[in-house]
């Protein structure tokens, strides 16, 4: 094969960038079929109970109202594994904000007025929305999110911890967090001749198609779901969410196309959140700095309708060489919205706690935290004994320390002052697993020398189109601009969602396979191509089904410099620097955006983001972007992302690991560790807002 004109890793511009910045790119809510009606949901205003009566008369009397769907008249849905999609099917209210009705009207304004005119009577019951470490309802689930066992034990933790000369025993808490992508959840649905077509904002429309077909008992060929452009997801669009079911229901009920965009204020209750975690970490070490005992015990919540357990103790199973280890999860069902995936579920909160504890251990041992981590690097995956396909955490730590200017560093806290500010630096490790899932791709060569790739990948803002074009061009030996990419439509060959940092690896593998097969066919072909061109299809079902003998993870190291204002308790990040080892980086421009975006989200987790469950009403208090504080530009100073050239032959044909999530992993710990270094105060309850920081700072002389 001739060398690819655009080698992988080139910083190609996003293919749809111009469309996006000029407004030409159309998102799910921007499709308005002729005769389109509008829907507005009615959320429950009790935290737990049953609907005893729904009065829709006033709503239906409004001119322009087409229907009000309730559990009494809504189309019946087949049961699915995900009960959050069983909307308007019965009278039960499992949490405040659960949808109890849907108004449909000629205009958005009328739909909203009708929704507000619906009268719902409830039989209410006592509710419980408060996660505590001693909650009597906590139990150990069979498995946690990702299919991992809830409990793993190696060796004899209790004995080793008791015998360890140096120990850390600390509990860290992460509050509920919300993904809040810029584009709210939105769907436009229409039925035509028995075929359901939906424009939906989703991270993977194949799954949405499959679920809609199951819910409405249709064949998969009777449903089409299009997610051409998606304005962010971060996990909360990973599987279908209620809006797509409601839109399809309403469209069927009214016989009109129906558009439904969830109001931002309703999103917190219905599209998922990162569950809060109470995490106790115990580390025991010898005076030589070797960790001998490690326990990471997590308590978290789920809803009463389904079990979702944030797998926060899982990363501790692969991070450090400790002969004795215990990692456990317990979960309690509360009367709260169902938690779900948020960028790096498990790793993001878990590595905050673990990497904070490692920092505390470094302090207790009087050792440099970079050196301590390197000292405790395992040869093989501690939990399984498997070899790592590649693990370059040490190199990331060393490269990061060098670039950041980590040394010389006085490890003593509260020494660096600039006026009222205390300054400090911190470090933490990052990790994220390599997941791969089957996908199918078609590659086609046209008679005019152009190529077309078809696969139902999704671009949620990451640059998926662009990077798949690069993968295809490299495999075809063709200029990238001769390759057309078709993604974001469930009628295309099926593929996994953009989630778990597995999109590019999974899709790219199928694209590579199809393109490689096409090259072989073209080579074998004699004479000019037929008018219809030549195509190939490839699926990676077999390749991805085979379990890898290797432990496969990306790793990274994050460094932070913070300032803490001793007058106000305000913590601001001055610098963030990450170095990652994530296989081959396929597009340096879009990859950098992913890393920096993840790190920025981690900064928010450390300092500004949190959703409180209101004991008075049982719902989330922060329901808009004025109160749920994602970092503003002024909060995000110099953020640098770098990576190592990592050559790992045990991944996929591109040699890539996922990069969508690792950027958020470790950031919060690096920031919190820097806050300790700045102030000498160990804060273990995120986010580090002035109300928590100021009372813990030494009292000022005046």
């Amino acid at each position, binding site marked *: 094969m001739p060398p690819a004109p655009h080698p992988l890793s080139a910083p190609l511009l996003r293919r749809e960038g111009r469309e996006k910045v000029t407004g030409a790119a159309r998102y799910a809510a921007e499709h308005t079929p002729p005769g389109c009606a509008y829907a507005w949901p009615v959320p429950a205003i009790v935290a737990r109970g049953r609907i005893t009566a729904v009065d829709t008369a006033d709503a239906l009397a409004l001119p322009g109202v087409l229907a009000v769907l309730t559990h009494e008249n809504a189309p019946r849905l087949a049961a699915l594994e995900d009960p959050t999609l069983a909307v308007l099917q019965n009278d039960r209210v499992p949490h405040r904000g659960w949808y109890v009705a849907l108004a449909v009207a000629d205009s958005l304004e009328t739909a909203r007025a009708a929704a507000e005119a619906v009268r719902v009577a409830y039989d209410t019951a006592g509710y419980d929305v408060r996660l505590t470490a001693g909650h009597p309802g906590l139990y150990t689930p069979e498995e946690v999110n990702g299919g991992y066992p809830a409990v793993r034990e190696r060796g004899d933790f209790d004995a080793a911890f008791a015998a360890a000369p140096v120990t850390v025993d600390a509990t860290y808490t992460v509050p509920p967090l919300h993904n809040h992508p810029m584009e709210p959840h939105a769907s436009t649905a229409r039925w035509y001749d028995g075929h359901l077509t939906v424009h939906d904002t989703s991270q993977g429309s194949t799954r949405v198609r499959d679920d809609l077909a199951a819910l409405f008992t249709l064949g998969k060929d009777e449903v089409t779901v299009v997610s051409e452009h998606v304005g962010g997801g971060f996990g909360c669009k990973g599987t279908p969410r209620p809006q797509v079911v409601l839109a399809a229901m309403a469209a069927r009920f009214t016989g009109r196309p129906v558009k439904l965009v969830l109001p931002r204020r309703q999103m917190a209750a219905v599209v998922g959140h990162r569950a809060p975690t109470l995490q106790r970490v115990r580390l025991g070490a010898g005076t030589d700095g070797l960790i001998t005992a490690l326990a990471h015990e997590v308590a978290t919540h789920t809803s009463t309708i389904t079990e979702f357990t944030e797998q926060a103790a899982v990363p501790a199973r692969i991070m450090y060489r400790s002969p004795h280890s215990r990692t456990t999860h317990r979960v309690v069902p509360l009367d709260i919205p169902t938690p779900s995936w948020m960028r790096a579920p498990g790793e993001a909160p878990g590595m905050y706690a673990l990497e904070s504890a490692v920092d505390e251990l470094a302090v207790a041992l009087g050792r440099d935290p970079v050196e301590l981590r390197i000292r405790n690097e395992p040869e093989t995956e501690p939990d399984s004994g498997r070899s790592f396909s590649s693990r370059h955490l040490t190199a990331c730590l060393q490269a990061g320390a060098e670039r950041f200017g980590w040394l010389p560093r006085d490890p003593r806290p509260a020494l660096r002052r600039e006026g009222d500010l205390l300054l400090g630096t911190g470090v933490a490790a990052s990790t994220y697993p390599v997941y791969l899932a089957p996908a199918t791709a078609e590659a086609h060569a046209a008679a005019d020398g152009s190529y077309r790739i078809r696969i139902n990948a999704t671009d949620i803002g990451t640059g998926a189109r662009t990077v798949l074009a690069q993968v295809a061009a490299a495999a075809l030996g063709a200029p990238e601009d001769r390759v057309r990419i078709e993604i974001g439509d469930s009628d295309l060959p099926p593929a996994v969602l953009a989630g778990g940092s597995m999109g590019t690896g999974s899709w790219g593998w199928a694209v590579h396979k199809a393109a490689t097969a096409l090259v072989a066919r073209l080579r074998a072909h004699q004479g000019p191509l037929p008018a219809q061109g030549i195509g190939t299809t490839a699926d990676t079902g077999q390749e991805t089904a085979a379990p890898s003998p290797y432990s496969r993870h990306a790793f990274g190291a994050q460094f932070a410099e913070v300032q803490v204002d001793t*007058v106000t308790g305000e913590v601001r990040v001055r610098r963030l620097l990450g170095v990652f080892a994530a296989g081959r980086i396929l597009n340096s421009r879009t990859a950098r955006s992913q890393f920096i975006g993840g790190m920025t989200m981690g900064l928010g987790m450390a300092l500004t983001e949190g959703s409180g469950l209101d004991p008075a009403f049982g719902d989330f208090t922060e329901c808009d972007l004025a109160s749920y504080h994602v970092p503003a530009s002024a909060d995000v100073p110099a953020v640098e992302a770098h990576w190592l050239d990592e050559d790992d032959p045990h991944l996929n044909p591109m040699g890539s690991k996922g990069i969508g999530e690792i950027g958020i992993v470790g950031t919060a710990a690096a920031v919190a560790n820097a806050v300790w270094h700045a102030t000498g105060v160990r804060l273990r309850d995120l986010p580090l807002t002035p109300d928590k920081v100021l009372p813990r700072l030494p009292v000022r002389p005046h």
Partner: protein
Amino acid sequence: MKQFGYVRAGSVAEAVRIAGEEPDARFLGGGTNLVDLMKLGVATPRLLVDVSRLPLDRIEELPDGGLRIGATVRNSVLAADPAVRDRYPVLSQALLSGASGQLRNTATTGGNLLQRTRCAYFQDAAKPCNKRAPGTGCPAREGAHRDLAVLGHSEHCVATQPSDMAVALAALDATVHLHGPDGERSVPATDFHRLPGDRPEQDTEIRRGELITAVELPPARPGGNSRYRKARDRASFAFALVSVAAVLDVHEGAVRHAALAYGGLAHRPWRARAAEAVLHGASATEDTFARAADAELAAARPLRENGFKVALARNLTVGVLAGLAGSAARA
């Protein structure tokens, strides 16, 4: 659908007349808060009287050396005005610490004074709130109130006034000019906002149908230096946890004049008279500043989750006054 009328007033007199004829009329300035509240169903006016294009967009020098700021002057214009930056830096700083650039380009001086609390219960029409629906109760007292008042609250309401600009105006002894059905009058900025008492639905002393036409600043004190400092959850685009507006004139080591107002502590910009009494004539030291803050904050009655505001206000007071005293000493 909620219907409402919209009319663009051609003059102040016309605006006041139209608003006087419709009990549920509201004046529309930049709309940066009112339109949000209408979307939330919190405000439900039947008529919007757009006053944003009235000829009230000038900043004028007054013969006595003061400044008259028209009610429709945009926040970003006011913050950037050379006279304001030069003579009333506390006002410019307060404006620039508020909202975002886009909002400041739209928000007006009059509208800024009338923005409503960001208490979560006030903004959720499905929940009780004495300010939004008198008599329904105040869940904030037991519920989420980290951001709410520690001074001057009542059993009926613990909301805070959100404007940064209003805090600076209180410290500057500004005057708010009003034009209503009964003619013109003016109210000191310190008295313009109310404490909640048993009528939390009434944020200010403004009477029905009255339009803010201007805000007047008295001449800046020669030798007086001023500053605004705001503590918040994120570096930009967040309401004050606590803010301090201060004007300080130090002569030969003693405080000749001090004016101090707090934001984020109460239902109105909290002019700190007790603190000022301690400051006047006292030596300009951190000890004095701390004593002054303590004198004012002795009245604080924090709720379960907002006790940090007392220490924060104290620290900000000392920090800001010490900074002003220090820069005066250097000058």
